[in-house]
């Protein structure tokens, strides 16, 4: 079952393109990564889906409901963590969560669990919160009533690595419970770690939509090596690069022949790694 379905969804700000002809679907129970550099149209897409912006043309449904007719009903099951998180600074953490709980008007089944994972000073005014604390309370408010889907715009910005890991663990746990998550990011490691599928957006257009695993398996291994001889003397592939004395290139399904070739040189250092999404990303953006 598809939770989000968009059909040629397009948003122009006057003559400026935000996103154009976006057609994608997000399945129930998956973590969907929406990747792209700043300004690619990620936030515009999210804000259009959530009714902050009116689409210029095209349409979209969430849980089968049209975003233009039924946005209030949609929001009963869909929570949102904005990228630029601004919270009422005059309230304490507790007042803020109580206010939002009252607006949702249903049981806050996950609140206690979330408060244990993302510990925040509830009695302090939000204006005294650090960026990380704000981000944490942003996560808490989104998940506290256990919505069917959470849309997140770069949710881990401001979280330290330890908390990021806790957050990923929490997302995976929610996924196992059948919840859907849509997260935009420009951090590839994040998508690499938690997402099932990824959509890559550039200049307002979707340029790739694939399973994370498929995407990675297509791209072979990344090889970096240092040799005693001059790097330029190495007979590598055409797209070989030399950077700070390191030779870098991509090997697709032929590691064996490369290893044999290396034996003709004096190897000082060698790194063979999985092709990360970052590399794929750079590949897409270099086209």
């Amino acid at each position, binding site marked *: 079952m598809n939770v989000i379905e968009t059909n040629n969804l397009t948003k122009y700000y006057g003559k400026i393109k935000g996103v154009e002809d976006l057609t994608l679907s997000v399945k129930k129970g998956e973590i969907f990564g929406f990747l792209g550099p700043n300004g690619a149209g990620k936030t515009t897409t999210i804000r259009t889906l959530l009714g902050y912006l009116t689409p210029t043309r095209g349409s979209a449904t969430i849980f089968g409901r049209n975003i233009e007719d039924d946005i209030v009903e949609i929001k009963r099951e869909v929570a949102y963590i904005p990228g630029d998180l601004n919270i009422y600074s005059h309230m304490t953490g507790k007042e803020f969560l109580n206010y939002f709980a009252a607006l949702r*008007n249903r049981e806050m089944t996950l609140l206690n669990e979330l408060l244990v994972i993302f510990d925040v000073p509830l009695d302090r005014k939000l204006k005294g919160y650090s960026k990380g604390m704000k981000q944490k309370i942003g996560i808490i*408010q989104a998940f506290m009533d256990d919505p069917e889907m959470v849309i997140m715009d770069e949710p881990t910005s401001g979280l330290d690595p330890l908390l990021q890991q806790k957050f990923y663990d929490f997302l995976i746990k929610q996924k196992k419970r059948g919840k859907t998550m849509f997260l935009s990011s420009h951090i590839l490691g994040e998508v690499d770690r938690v997402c099932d599928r990824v959509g890559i957006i550039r200049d307002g257009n979707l340029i790739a939509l694939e399973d994370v695993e498929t995407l990675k398996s297509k791209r072979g291994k990344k090889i970096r090596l240092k040799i005693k001889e001059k790097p330029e003397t190495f007979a590598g592939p055409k797209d070989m690069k030399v950077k700070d004395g390191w030779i870098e290139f991509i090997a697709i399904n032929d590691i064996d022949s490369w290893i044999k070739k290396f034996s003709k040189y004096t190897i000082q250092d060698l790194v063979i790694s999985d092709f990360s999404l970052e590399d794929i990303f750079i590949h897409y953006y270099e086209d």
Partner: protein
Amino acid sequence: MQDIFRFRIAIQTILDYKKTTITLTLLFMLISVMYAGMFPAFKEPLEEMGETGLFDSFSNFFGPATFDMATYVGFLNLELYQIFWMIILGIVIGFIAASIVSKEIEGKTIDLLMSNPVSRKQIVFEKFIGLIPMTLIINFGTMLAVIGITIVIGEELDFGNLFLTHVASVPYFLAILGIAILISVIINEKMKASITFIALLMGMYVIETMSKTVPDYESIGVVSITHYFVPYDTLKFGDFNIGSALILICVTTVCMVISLIYFEHKDITV
């Protein structure tokens, strides 16, 4: 549907302005006590001024009430109601109301607010409702202060008329809220919205004053909301002009309906 009737945003608005309401109520109570309390000292000099015909020149601006300035009712009307009430309090309440939506957009808190299952109409309407208690508390708090000081200084005042004056000012302040909220949904910066409101109210006041002083412009005063609330008539004679009150309620309704429709279709950008 039932969520709309829980008025959670309205309640939050009331809580957000709790301190402001208390401060402003005390301030306007103090001002009214100060002005009314000054009357015994001004009574004789004002009577003398009246005899010299000095009020004639003022009457152009403040109407026939000017000739009554040496009486307690006339003094209250001119010093307290026409200036501090209609203009200063009008500016203060409008200033606050004009920022009520724009500050959420400027501060981007609207993003999180709208992530809840609340409609845009509900946000604007409940913000309007949430500002009414503040207006009423300042209004009737000041009335109590005027009653108190009148008893203390031993002047004569028809308290029924006084009450009616404060009741008559309710539609006036509702119209102020309506106009200010309309500005607030259109302009995204709170300070710009508030200043636009002040300019508009002052503009209307100037137009109305001009319509009274320049014979050819008599009819243009009808565009000003200050034209529809004349405290003197109610305070002195107990006249409550229902027609004027209805016009002010119409102004409020029209402004709110436009605000709701406009905000419903507005793009909320980052």
